[in-house]
């Protein structure tokens, strides 16, 4: 299977995404911003369609449109301080509105469906190089912002007192989210990016560990889901996006069940010890 170049491309992209997406997702989940991931992934579709329309690489245009949308969310926070969910509705309208308008115009020579559901056949070498380039920048940014992001998430006031420029970091984080989302479009598709950013983190949080261990297990779960999703979608001849999302739900349910059994056993042992 991996003798095919498109599978090699998809595997490398999956490995990169598997490590990076929980790195972003953990902050989205803990900031209660899981829906921002979903909104921006839908906004990325507008970037894809604009790329296809203008003849530019869709991964790159998705990154640009999503980064602008992410920055717009941060900016609109000042206007809609108390009704922040309205911001998501605005950005969703902008993104989905643009995408539907472009798709329905009949001007696209490529089927946009592959970007909705993901397609392992379509990860080209150029896509892979763009993904690797974005990944290098994202890893560096994440490494640099890691401590700041943890503290903004845990206690933003304390972060400010320690000298963290919270607003600036939030803008940088929007670009980071945009970067990871645009990397994920080819493999998992727009429809399930939000889920793939957050479900591995949700599963890891069930383990009740500290931040580093939760992040570590999120990466493990994410890699398992993406690689297994890739292999099985190859053999079953189905779009990888939907199946990977189903695997993510399955992993979450399994982890929850194992943790419940473990807790019940611990209680039983404690009761039966004289």
């Amino acid at each position, binding site marked *: 299977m991996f003798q095919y170049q498109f599978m090699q491309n998809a595997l490398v992209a999956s490995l990169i995404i598997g490590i990076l997406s929980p790195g972003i997702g953990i902050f989205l989940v*803990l900031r209660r911003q899981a829906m921002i991931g979903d909104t921006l992934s839908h906004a990325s579709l507008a970037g894809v369609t604009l790329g296809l329309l203008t003849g530019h690489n869709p991964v790159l245009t998705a990154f640009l449109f999503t980064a602008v949308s992410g920055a717009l969310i941060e900016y609109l926070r000042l206007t809609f301080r108390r009704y922040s969910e309205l911001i998501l509705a605005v950005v969703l309208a902008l993104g989905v509105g643009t995408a539907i308008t472009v798709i329905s115009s009949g001007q696209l020579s490529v089927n946009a469906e592959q970007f909705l559901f993901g397609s392992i056949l379509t990860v080209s070498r150029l896509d892979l190089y763009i993904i690797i380039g974005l990944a290098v920048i994202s890893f560096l940014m994440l490494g640099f912002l890691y*401590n*700041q992001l*943890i*503290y903004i*998430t*845990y*206690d933003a*006031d*304390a*972060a*400010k*007192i*320690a*000298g*963290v420029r919270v607003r600036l970091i939030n803008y940088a984080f929007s670009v980071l989210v945009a970067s990871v989302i645009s990397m994920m479009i080819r493999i998992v598709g727009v429809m399930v990016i939000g889920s793939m950013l957050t479900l591995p983190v949700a599963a890891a*949080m069930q383990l*009740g*560990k*500290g*931040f*580093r*261990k*939760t992040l570590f297990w999120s990466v493990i779960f994410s890699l398992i889901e993406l690689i297994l999703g890739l292999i099985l979608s190859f053999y079953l001849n189905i779009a990888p996006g939907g199946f990977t999302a189903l695997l993510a739900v399955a992993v979450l349910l399994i982890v929850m069940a194992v943790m419940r059994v473990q807790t019940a056993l611990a209680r039983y042992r404690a009761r039966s010890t004289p």
Partner: protein
Amino acid sequence: MIDISSLFFSYSDSPPWLLHDLDLRVRPGDYISVLGDNGSGKSTLIRILLGFLEPTRGNVRVDTKDIGYVPQRRDVGDRDFPLTVYEALNTFRRLKKLSPDDLKSALQHVDLTGREAELIGSLSGGQQQKLLIARALMGDPPLIILDEPSTGIDPASQKDIYELLSHMSKVHGTTIISVEHNIEAAMANSTRIYHLAGGSGHICTPAQYMAEHTP
């Protein structure tokens, strides 16, 4: 250490004022408890001192940017936030570019040594408060600002916390500003009381405060 003169504040930037013509001068080593009813502007005042809010009118000068801040526990991450005691302190230590020894000594101050690997959510209310105090103490800042440090905490932990604050003020010369609901602790430990009522402030000694407020 702190100089407040003719401070007016309102969230709408116009009257009615939440804080009305406040004046306060805090000397290094002072331990000032800020008292007042709910809604009297105590927390707003400390948010101005911390630089989170701008005065609508008047001047506020704080001589140091190195401030230890202990927020109310309910304002800090959820109980299920996946963070260990060590991670909570070490991440903050790195942000402030302090040494690992600063972390160790802060843990010793609040008696949390040996509990570094525990999740913050598994600590009792008193221990969580001590953790926030340890964070504020790291690097020995000259000024510590606390927002109701004893709310929802058992009496034994309250005693530990106030003994520590008193020690920091008397022995290390740390300036302490503490918004208080605990009148008894404020009387026992503070050098001065700042009483906020109807938007206005009044500074006095604990003895004067008791004389004015005991029927």
